[in-house]
């Protein structure tokens, strides 16, 4: 077996009194992929920054980091500079801000080359173009001259990867490289990383909070909690034979896109501890379902629980996860109950264009963005319609058009029986009372200057209801918060609690229709499960209808009755969730579903991915005929030249393909995807 290229031993990092990382050890061998998983705040990024020697000033580091046997902690700055970007390189989470906005991408890559290699400007630029080609940027010579803002997020992440592999590194640390990206782009980027690894033979450290991403990619996985590894082992050991309640809990709280039926998710109760105030003993104790008093005595060390498998739990022998693979789908069949009679929302041939502006100081109009182009759907009483699609597909625009309650640019919107084009003032007020909204970012949607009491009382006051403290406390209790906290400010709550406050505000006026824009995508998985369960139970108890917008298809499968898949301002496929997820008919839906990584290593390894090429085309300039044809795998590989003419010439409308399923494809055919 090879010697490890990177060996981290007992690494600790503290900022003042706060110990952010408390003893992390791992080793990676050449060509190996180590996954590091953990929720936000568990110390993943600080660990990697410490390894790179890029911690902010004021951080104290102890322990050892050895790169090919050479100690990096305490090494002189010059030596570190010569390692960074050469033997040890890094890919960051947010591609939008990772590149200097004022330099051309080609120059930025060339700079990375020239720092470590004595080559001229031209040679470095040629090398940069080769690298761009390697990471899959079309027309690299031309694109090298572009500035970062002219690239999409996925493209920028490719540039960052190109920079990271510019000097054939031994180790590439990837810190959540795909978190900010859409699933189809995520699949592409993971593919690029695999290619880069094959080319350079580097070891990869893959940091993520998404258990799906590492399942198919990593050889070994390290689970972090409160600044410490709590379980380490081979990827199958972690996913199928987890010996730590936290890992098992994480796996249980992930909604799965490949599961039908509605077993409630098992959220992990409580919130991750703040590193400044750790509980004594096992840091997971306050949230652990298996907690016993012995757990509080001392922090459990990593027990050897199997070959190359260690877990930090004193009761590891008793942990028996419902391993994700062996957990059979319940056989209650498709939930195809008849749809309700009363319609609460009808959207008919909705159109919304935006002017396409260019430049910040010298603003000018250079075209029209067709953000929503003839979209139709309806929502019945007591139903949940999920609206999914990649960013830029027009979900938010469709939503705001409905919420504005104004006459749409084209088409018709009927909310709770009223056409929005012909609303009287009184009717509008009435609808504003019966339709409420919950936004993605709970902190941004609560006025930070108001107490929770005032926030919850605002809708009551606006609609002339008495804003009694009793009603406010009732609402807080309804969403599972302590009513005594009404006097606090939103900042005093954790993310999940804030989202509960936002939900309580939406419920204040006893609405009939709730519009939810990505309500759980800003939350950690363990917290997300709790909010999803809450929404689900509220709907049943209060007889609500949800219009639920999300980019996470798994969440939608879990909560929605019907789903509409949007692509570039159009509906690609719409229908009952089980029908659409089990037998998608539109090639886009098929690709989308196959791009979602499953937290199930075996299935991930055996899956045949349908990779979409390129980015979403600009909605200002959509392709003729079928908007999906530029990326459609069916168009590219299965259709004959004659058949293609139809795709190029005629824009497909949504046509029924099943009992409650319709797809906008000339050659729709229902099939299962892996």
């Amino acid at each position, binding site marked *: 077996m090879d010697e490890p290229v990177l060996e981290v031993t007992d690494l600790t990092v503290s900022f003042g009194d706060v110990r952010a990382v408390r003893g992390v050890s791992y080793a990676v061998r050449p060509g190996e992929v180590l996954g590091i998983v953990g929720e936000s705040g568990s110390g993943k990024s600080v660990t990697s920054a410490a390894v790179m020697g890029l911690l902010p000033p004021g951080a104290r580091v102890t322990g050892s980091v050895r790169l090919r046997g050479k100690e990096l902690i305490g090494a002189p700055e010059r030596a570190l500079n010569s390692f960074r970007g050469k033997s040890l390189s890094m890919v960051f989470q947010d591609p939008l801000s990772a590149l200097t906005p004022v330099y051309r991408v080609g120059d930025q890559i060339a700079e990375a080359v020239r720092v470590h290699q004595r080559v001229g400007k031209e040679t470095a630029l040629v090398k940069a173009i080769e690298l761009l080609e390697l990471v899959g940027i079309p027309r690299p010579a031309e694109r090298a001259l572009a500035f970062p803002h002219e690239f999409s997020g996925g493209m920028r992440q490719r540039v960052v990867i190109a920079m990271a592999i510019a000097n054939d590194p031994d180790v590439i640390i990837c810190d959540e490289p795909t978190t900010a990206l859409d699933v189809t782009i995520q699949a592409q980027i993971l593919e690029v990383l695999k290619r880069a690894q094959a080319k350079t033979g580097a070891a990869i450290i893959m940091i993520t909070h998404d258990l799906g991403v590492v399942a198919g990619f990593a050889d070994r996985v390290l689970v972090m909690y409160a600044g410490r590894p709590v379980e380490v082992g081979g990827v199958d050991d972690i996913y199928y034979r987890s010996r730590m309640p936290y890992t098992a809990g994480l796996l249980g709280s992930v909604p799965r896109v490949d599961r039908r039926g509605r077993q409630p998710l098992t959220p992990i109760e409580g919130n991750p501890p703040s590193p400044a105030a750790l509980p004594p003993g096992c840091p997971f104790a306050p949230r652990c379902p298996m907690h016993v008093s012995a757990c509080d005595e001392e922090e459990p060390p990593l027990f050897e629980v199997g070959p190359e498998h260690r877990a930090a739990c004193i009761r590891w022998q008793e942990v028996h996860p419902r391993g994700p693979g062996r957990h059979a789908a319940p056989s209650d069949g498709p939930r195809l109950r008849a749809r309700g009679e009363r319609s609460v929302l009808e959207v008919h041939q909705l159109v919304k264009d935006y002017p396409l502006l260019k430049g910040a100081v010298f603003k000018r109009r250079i075209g029209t963005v067709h953000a929503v182009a003839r979209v139709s759907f309806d929502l019945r009483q007591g139903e949940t319609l999920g609206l999914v699609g990649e960013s830029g597909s027009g979900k938010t625009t469709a939503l705001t058009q409905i919420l504005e309650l104004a006459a749409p640019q084209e088409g018709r919107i009927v909310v709770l029986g009223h056409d929005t084009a012909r609303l009287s003032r009184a009717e509008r007020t009435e609808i504003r009372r019966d339709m409420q909204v919950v936004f993605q970012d709970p902190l941004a*949607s609560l*006025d930070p200057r108001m107490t929770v009491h005032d926030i919850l009382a605002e809708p009551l006051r606006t609609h002339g209801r008495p804003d009694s403290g*009793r009603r406010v406390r009732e609402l807080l*209790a309804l969403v599972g918060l302590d009513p005594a906290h009404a006097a606090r400010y939103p900042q005093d709550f954790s993310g999940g609690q804030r989202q509960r406050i936002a939900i309580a505000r939406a419920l204040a006026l006893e609405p009939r229709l709730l519009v939810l824009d990505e309500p759980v995508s800003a939350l950690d998985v363990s917290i997300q499960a709790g909010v999803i*369960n*809450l929404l689900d*139970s509220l709907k049943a*108890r209060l007889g609500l209808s949800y219009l639920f917008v999300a980019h996470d298809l798994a969440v939608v499968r879990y909560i929605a009755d019907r789903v509409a898949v949007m692509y570039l301002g159009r509906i690609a496929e719409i229908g009952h969730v089980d029908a659409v997820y089990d037998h998608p008919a539109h090639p886009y839906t098929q690709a989308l579903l196959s791009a979602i990584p499953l937290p199930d290593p075996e299935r991930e390894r055996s899956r045949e991915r349908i990779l979409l090429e390129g980015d979403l085309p600009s909605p200002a300039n959509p392709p003729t005929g079928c908007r999906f044809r530029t990326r459609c795998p069916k168009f590219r590989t299965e259709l004959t030249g004659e058949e293609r003419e139809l795709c190029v010439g005629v824009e497909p409308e949504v046509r029924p393909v099943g009992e409650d399923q319709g797809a906008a494809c000339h050659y729709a055919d229902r099939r299962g995807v892996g």
Partner: protein
Amino acid sequence: MTLSEEELAEELADGTLTRPPSRARMVAGRFFRSTQGLIGFAVLALMFLLAFVGPLFSPWTYTDKDFTAFMQPPSARHWFGTLQTGSDVFAVTLRGMQKSLVVGLLAALVSTALAAVVGAFAGYFLGWTDRVLSWVTDLLLVLPAFLILAILSPLFGSGQWPLFVVMLALFLWMVTSKIVRGMAISVKEREFVQAARYMGVPPVRIIFRHVIPNLSSLLIVDATLNVSSAILTETSLSYFGFGIQPPDVSFGTLIADGSLTAVYAPWTFWFVAGLLVVTVLAVNLVGDALRDAFDPSSGKA
């Protein structure tokens, strides 16, 4: 998670409504814990005390003339010395300080309020409202303020200083208003404003309840800094004889006179100049400390 009725009743019973420390109290706490803020505030308080209480202890008023002492250096009789005219420097300095402080405070208040309202309306409504308001803002930025104030100075003759305050304020608000406009645009995009809109809260109420309060830190800081701008502008105008008109005195008129005699009678210049600098410095320190106190990212000390 779903509560039974009894549980609900129980929760509600002991759910006592305790008011948390209000935001203002928190900010004040953070403000007074910073040395800078404390010093600034103490000095400023001292200046006010000096300006308004000091004259009670002085044997001379600012109109008195001591015909036995022209241009005398500081002594027990005249603490800051005397001027060419026999006026007591201490008495006139305090009188000038009163005027400058009052003018500065009022002008800052008026201009910040104007900036907040104009900026918030322009930024919230955009469209034509914005175009008109922004055009007026630009026009006032382009007009040489000093010149207009100077030309109009005869209007501010004795006793007309409130008019002077208004005119001063009229030329101080534009930059703040542009900043407020920009921030109002981004606050408008914030989801809590969208939430209020979709709830049916009328626009003007949103502006006064959500937009302006969320800019309050900027506004308070800006009001503070406008106090110093107003004092400085007043000083410059009065220096050239365009501001506060005799027989009234202010920092500016005193400095103008003092600078002529400063070489051989330093007391006629340095006391006034020193007090002016200390006052403005204290105001700026307070403003800066307030900014830190408002900014949650500066850490809850």
